[in-house]
């Protein structure tokens, strides 16, 4: 099966920005892959002047948030690393039973690689609101720098969102037929974050490569 892969532009984020950035990207992708009846929900980012779209499904939101939290805790244990979150869409197919495999099989038809470079800023800076940050470092230059960096990130995030849109536009053929089932809103998908041990993550990636038959880029 044809599996399309989209490598999103790497974003330089600070720790406290991870949550918003990932939400924005993940929801945007999933929204594009939610071909069931959706009632879109606009969400304004707090840190950036960007509005993204969710499917308006609590379950989904929760699931994505959980993954993000996992990722954040992973980042805390592994500072200063480039990291990758993979959002994969797959179809579940019944496979002919054989002694080797499970009865069902996941056929991935799309993978999104979200690349983050979490900046090394000490955690002290990562208050959730920028107000607190302002208080923390009154130095004007530091503040300006921060604002400038923020602006850059906003622009980059914007770019990534457009990258998603373009990809969705250009690659439509591989998307499976719309699920007919009532209540099925989006295609089955999975969010993969680096697991606690790098080697396991590597293994996971390898498995994935084997599964899809596509060389995927390891960071």
């Amino acid at each position, binding site marked *: 099966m044809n599996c399309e892969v989209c490598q999103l532009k790497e974003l330089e984020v600070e720790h406290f920005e991870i949550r918003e950035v990932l939400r924005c990207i993940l929801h945007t992708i999933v929204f*594009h892959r939610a071909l069931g*009846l959706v009632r879109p929900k606009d969400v304004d980012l707090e840190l950036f002047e960007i509005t*993204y779209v969710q499917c308006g499904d609590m379950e989904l939101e929760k699931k994505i948030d959980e993954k993000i939290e996992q990722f954040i805790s992973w980042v805390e244990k592994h500072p200063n690393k480039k990291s990758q979150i993979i959002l994969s869409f797959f179809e579940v197919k019944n496979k002919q039973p054989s002694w080797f495999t499970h009865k069902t099989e996941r056929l991935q038809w799309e993978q999104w690689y979200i690349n983050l470079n979490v900046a090394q800023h000490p955690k002290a800076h990562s208050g959730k609101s920028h107000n607190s940050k302002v208080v923390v470092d009154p130095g004007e230059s530091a503040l300006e720098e921060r604002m400038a960096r923020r602006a850059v990130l906003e622009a980059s995030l914007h770019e990534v969102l*457009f990258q998603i*849109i373009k990809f*969705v536009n250009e690659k439509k053929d591989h998307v499976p037929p719309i699920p007919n089932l009532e209540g099925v809103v989006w295609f089955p998908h999975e969010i993969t974050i680096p697991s606690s041990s790098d080697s396991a993550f590597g293994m996971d990636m390898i498995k994935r490569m084997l599964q899809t038959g596509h060389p995927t880029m390891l960071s």
Partner: protein
Amino acid sequence: MASSHGNSHSEAAKMEQIITEFYAKSLHIILESRTPYMSSRNYSGEQALSSPSSSSSSSSSVRPRDKWFNLALRECPAALENLDLWRQSHLEPMVVDVILVQRPLDCEPVKCSPKRDLVRNLSLKERYPYCWNYEQEEYGCEAKSEKIIERWVVQYDSRKIRDTNSGSRRSSSNTLHSLYKKSMLLLRSLYVTVRLLPAYKVYRNLNSSGQIRSFALTHRVASFAEPFTCREEAAMQRFGFTPVDTACGRLCLSVLYCSSLSDVSSESSTPMSPQLIPDYVGSPLTDPLKRFPSLPVTGSVAHAFPPSSSFSRRHSWSFDHYRASPPSVSFSPSPTYSEPRALISNQSSCFPPTIMPRYPPETSLVYKKDTSFDEYSPAFSPSPSSASPSLPIFIPGSHHSKPLLQSESAPFSERTAKLANSPAFRNKLNMPLRGFESGSSKTDKTRGFMEAGTAVEKFSSLGKDDARQYSEVKISSSSSSRSFPDDFDDSDFPCPFDVDDEDVTDPGSRPESFDKNVPLCEPHAPGGLFPMKKSQDAAVGALVQMFRKAPPLRQDNSNSVKFSQACRPEIWSNSSQEPHQPSKGQASIQRDDSSSVISSGHVTSKTTTVALEELQSYREMKNLLLGQGSKSHM
């Protein structure tokens, strides 16, 4: 459509239906995020105005319309309205222009309503030209500037039948499914995209916090596009969605958009105010009636803009800023929009931020005076004596306007400040004041005025020399002939009038004009425009003061005109501060600043509307005065 003749009718019909629905959904998506839901205070998309409740809420029930492409959208009457028209259009291209309308803020939503209705009733084609031109139409709004900030084009390119027949037949159902799926994908990316384009920020701005804006979004749906000029086109970026191929054509969606709308989308834009001002001042000669509709508005500024509207503003910082350093904020020659607004909000005044361009109550008076007199009443015609040659701008009859000016704190204050600063003036001024005061204390308006007039005369005779000396002062400060009671200890500040008097050149004319003016002056009470804000007593007191000090009409015309044109925002903020300004010292400082600013202005002509507005405000003042002045002061 051509396609309907080719393959099986049902397939073709289905396809056409999908395409039609695609048009509809696209339009819905676009307009839903471009037509602000209206609150009464925020005038924006004309169409949206009529449907306040519409877009903000989404019902949980699934409407048939929502099922198309599995995308449930909020109600968007603007879209529905256009859709009905569109369904009959047989898949012509659909061009949706999103238009940013910038207008002077004195254009009331109310006034605009007739236009809106008109728009609604017009058929699509009629509407198109109409929309294009309406900026020039009367409607009571000042001239608006319109700019197309987005142009969406939904288009179905049908191939010729013979090209497609062969291929399409075999998998038509597949094709349909595929078409439908791809359309869904396309619409989802459209949905995301509309929120990422700059115009969305404008939309959000309009929706946020019910502020009154000087800009609005409107739209136009047509089957053809008015070509952009090269320059316009160069300023726009294009984003083309990948077309969806169908059995016999392709479904295309693209957008041209302005990549930078920073001036509008970010809270407030400095560039806007300068643009608006000239329009606002306008030339009465060319279009004397143009501003009539706004007349009723001025009288009831307070009502038109509920105070609450100003509070919701996001940028609280401006508030502080204002307090901390009023002069810097209010007097910079080219204030940013935000500042004036901030001022407004702070004061809890009734004026909406947008007011700036429109006349702040006080400013407006000044403005009106200058502009209105000639056209308005013959009595005020400039005195025959010509202004001194050195000051071509200056209108000799200007002193007549003074009584009118009284109510405005700001304008005079500036002038007063100047005067106060010049010792020579002070001395001279005091004299007339005395006489003035005694006369005016009786609240007998006529009498007060008469006396004032005489005082002025004396004054002028005294001050001729000085007047020349200070001619510059006069010019710059002329708009503020009257001192506000708060600022200078009171009433004694008689004189701005004498000062400006160029009258020097023509002393004789003054009294005469004065008399004529009296009737007009009567209605004029200081609290007239914003009596609500001040305490009654204060208002009455201020009124009395004004009367006492009333200078001959007209004196300042030239100056005030300049004033209004060049620095309306400043003036306004300045003047608006007055009523609330507790400290005199501060006030005087501000005045100085503003007066200097004033001098840099350009002369403008008056408008009839302004005159009428002024008249109205005077009437109100009069009523107020009659009702309360006597009570509190007798």
